[in-house]
């Protein structure tokens, strides 16, 4: 369709006579602005309250929000504090630079409003905010008594090693569960968590566990639930009256959660009590614990049957491990013959007959053992393996005595050993490293060689991580910046020790802000 092009002519502004394009008011912008001030009635001076300790601003009546100067959140907050802004339409807002110590914040706003007969006028104006300093309630409380806690979680596990706590520590870091802890105290057999809202102060590492301190009972409860999801626990909670206001009937308590993790760990050898064995279908009394999450996975190495016990089932009839990973002995495999293979719970096992000798005996005497093992899929002649030496062990277990006529095997092999290959790599650093929680160490009940023991256990934990991909599943590993890959490439030979691929590693992000804020993570 042919349309005539329309050029808009110009008219004179009805006030000043200036040539302009016709608009709804037929006045030039200047005349219109002199006639009508759309910013009339809008606030130009506002007072906002700021806490100098934690850099947060008060949103009345009681919310304190942490915001940086000249940030988007602060801009939103400043605009929200203006009343009457709904009468005009806000188009643009930005900060005007002010000296940080001047206690003034300036915001330039551009607003639009319809005036006269349909003309939309846009005008910019500045709002000045006076910042007044006032300490927020949480900072006041911290200043008054920095160690005050309301809820504490004491985590204990009565075993002689600390593998569970290393693993738990990594899980906590990954899930950021300790962001609410003010203090984490590592005790001898467990961990105490005292939970506090968002401001971690310190974490104390005792000999038998860790204590965490928090300020909110609900945070403590959430933390206990989290631990319950990753290991089978038994818990109880108590409260202690701190103060009481008879007039308004307010009672202030200190809450304590006592959490005990079951003492059965991975790779433990267990003799099941007869009752438990019967409920699980007469599972052979000797079982190996293969995995501990919120339930315990037990595997019978000779029949390759497995079962799961969850927390309640375990604690109804608790049992201890017969032998645990500290008592593992190294063996060398001389001959192996597979009998059958099966897939059990996602991993492939094969029952095999093996001829093995202790590494300490090998070459010195002729003591050989013929044993049945479930590691047929892994072992080849000439391999090294770790196992429990039942032949030489003096077990003092009540459960074992209950089984009359039980023939104990001489050795039960648990896992393959990469010891020899590790010798070669002894001094080479790993490609990855772990973060750790910032814990206080309670040095009261320490022995002199405790440090070395701790380091050896940590090293063992790292090896476990390398060998077991399923263990790594829940943990974040970080790239080690000091690692030199070039040297390693030249050293590869036939069978490598299991190592963690580079792709699995997270780049070590420098989350310095978060770390300062959290205060409980350190590299």
């Amino acid at each position, binding site marked *: 369709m042919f349309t*005539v*092009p*329309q*050029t*808009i*002519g110009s*008219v*004179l*502004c*009805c*006030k*000043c*006579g200036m040539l302009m394009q*016709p608009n709804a*008011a*037929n*006045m030039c912008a200047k005349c219109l602005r002199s006639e009508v001030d759309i910013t009339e009635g809008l606030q130009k001076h506002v007072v906002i309250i700021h806490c100098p300790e934690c850099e947060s601003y008060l949103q009345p009546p009681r919310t304190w929000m942490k915001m940086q100067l000249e940030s988007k959140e602060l801009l939103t907050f400043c605009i929200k504090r203006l009343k009457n802004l709904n009468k005009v339409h806000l188009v643009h807002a930005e900060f005007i630079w002010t000296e940080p110590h001047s206690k003034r914040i300036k915001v330039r706003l551009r607003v639009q409003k319809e005036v*006269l*007969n349909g003309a939309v006028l846009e005008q910019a104006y500045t709002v000045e905010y006076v910042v007044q300093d006032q300490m927020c309630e949480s900072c006041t409380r911290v200043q008054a008594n920095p160690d005050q806690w309301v809820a504490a979680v004491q985590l204990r596990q009565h075993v002689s090693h600390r593998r569970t706590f290393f693993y738990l520590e990594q899980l906590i870091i990954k899930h950021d569960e300790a962001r609410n802890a003010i203090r984490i105290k590592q005790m001898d057999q467990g961990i105490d968590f005292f939970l506090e809202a968002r401001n971690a102060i310190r974490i104390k590492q005792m000999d038998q566990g860790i204590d965490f301190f928090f300020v909110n009972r609900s945070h403590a409860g959430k933390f206990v639930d989290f631990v319950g999801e990753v290991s089978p626990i038994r818990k109880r909670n108590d409260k202690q009256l701190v103060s009481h206001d008879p007039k308004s009937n307010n009672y202030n308590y200190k809450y304590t959660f006592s959490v005990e993790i079951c003492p059965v760990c991975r790779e433990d050898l267990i003799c099941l009590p007869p009752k438990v064995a019967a409920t699980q279908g007469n599972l052979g009394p000797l079982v190996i614990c293969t995995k501990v999450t919120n339930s315990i996975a037990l595997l019978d190495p000779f029949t390759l049957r497995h079962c799961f016990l969850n927390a309640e089932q375990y604690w109804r009839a608790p049992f201890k491990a017969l032998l645990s990973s500290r008592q593992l002995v190294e063996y060398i495999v001389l001959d192996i013959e597979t009998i059958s293979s099966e897939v059990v719970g996602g991993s492939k096992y094969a029952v095999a007959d093996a001829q093995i000798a202790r590494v300490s005996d090998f070459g010195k005497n002729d003591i050989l053992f013929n044993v049945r093992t479930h590691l047929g899929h892994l072992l080849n002649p000439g391999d090294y393996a770790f196992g429990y030496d039942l032949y030489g062990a003096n077990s003092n277990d009540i459960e074992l005595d209950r089984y009359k006529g039980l023939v104990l095997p001489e050795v039960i092999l648990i896992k393959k050993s990469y010891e020899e290959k590790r010798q070669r790599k002894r001094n080479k650093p790993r490609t990855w490293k772990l973060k750790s929680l910032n814990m206080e160490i309670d040095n009261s009940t320490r022995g002199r060689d405790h440090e070395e023991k701790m380091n050896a256990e940590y090293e063992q934990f790292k090896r476990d991580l390398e060998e077991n991909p399923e263990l790594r599943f829940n943990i974040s590993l970080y790239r080690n910046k000091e690692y030199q890959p070039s040297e390693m490439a030249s050293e590869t030979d036939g069978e490598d020790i299991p190592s963690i691929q580079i792709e699995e590693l997270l780049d070590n992000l420098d989350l310095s802000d978060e770390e300062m804020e959290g205060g409980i993570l350190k590299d």
Partner: protein
Amino acid sequence: MATRLQFENNCEVGVFSKLTNAYCLVAIGGSESFYSTFEAELADVIPVVKTSIGGTRIIGRLCAGNKNGLLLPHTTTDQELQHLRNSLPDSVVVQRIEERLSALGNCISCNDHVALTHPDLDRETEEMIADVLGVEVFRQTIAGNILVGSYCAFSNRGGLVHPHTSIEDLDELSTLLQVPLVAGTVNRGSEVIASGLTVNDWTAFCGSDTTATELSVIESVFKLREAQPSALVDEMRKSLIDTYV
């Protein structure tokens, strides 16, 4: 010369009056000052007639006329028709027409030679216009508005149209009407020209909100300024001073 006035504190003088070269109609107002202003300007030259149409006072928008005739809507009562026939000179033909669009002042804009009408006007009405008013009739729109009688006002010497009229439209209308046209406003930026302004060949009346700028535009396009210097100064003073404090 352009005069600023108000009808009962309302600046839309084109609604309450109709000015042509042969006569002037005014509405019956609460006070006599409206009528007396017209009289002061026009009494010796042309008759100024007070009337109502269909019982209403918005006579400027209901009727359309020039020196040759006057057209009235079907709502005009017989008494009003008779009164008008009696008061106006014999050369003016007064005719009542049957038309669906009864606000003839909004639909028809005319001078003594040409008329612009609403595009939807009946054929008979168009013929009647050509007959009674003795003009050439063109159906047009102004700046996209069909109410041509409201958005433009023109005399035999010039015309003022809606401010949003494009240049092409302005040229087209100008060639049709054979008078110079300008796009402008009246009554401090109001776009409804004909309701704020009523004009003939030598004088104009507009609402008191009209600014000095608008007044100067009106005077220049309708060629109302006389040549004598003293008159010029007087007129300029009138148009330059907005309000007396």
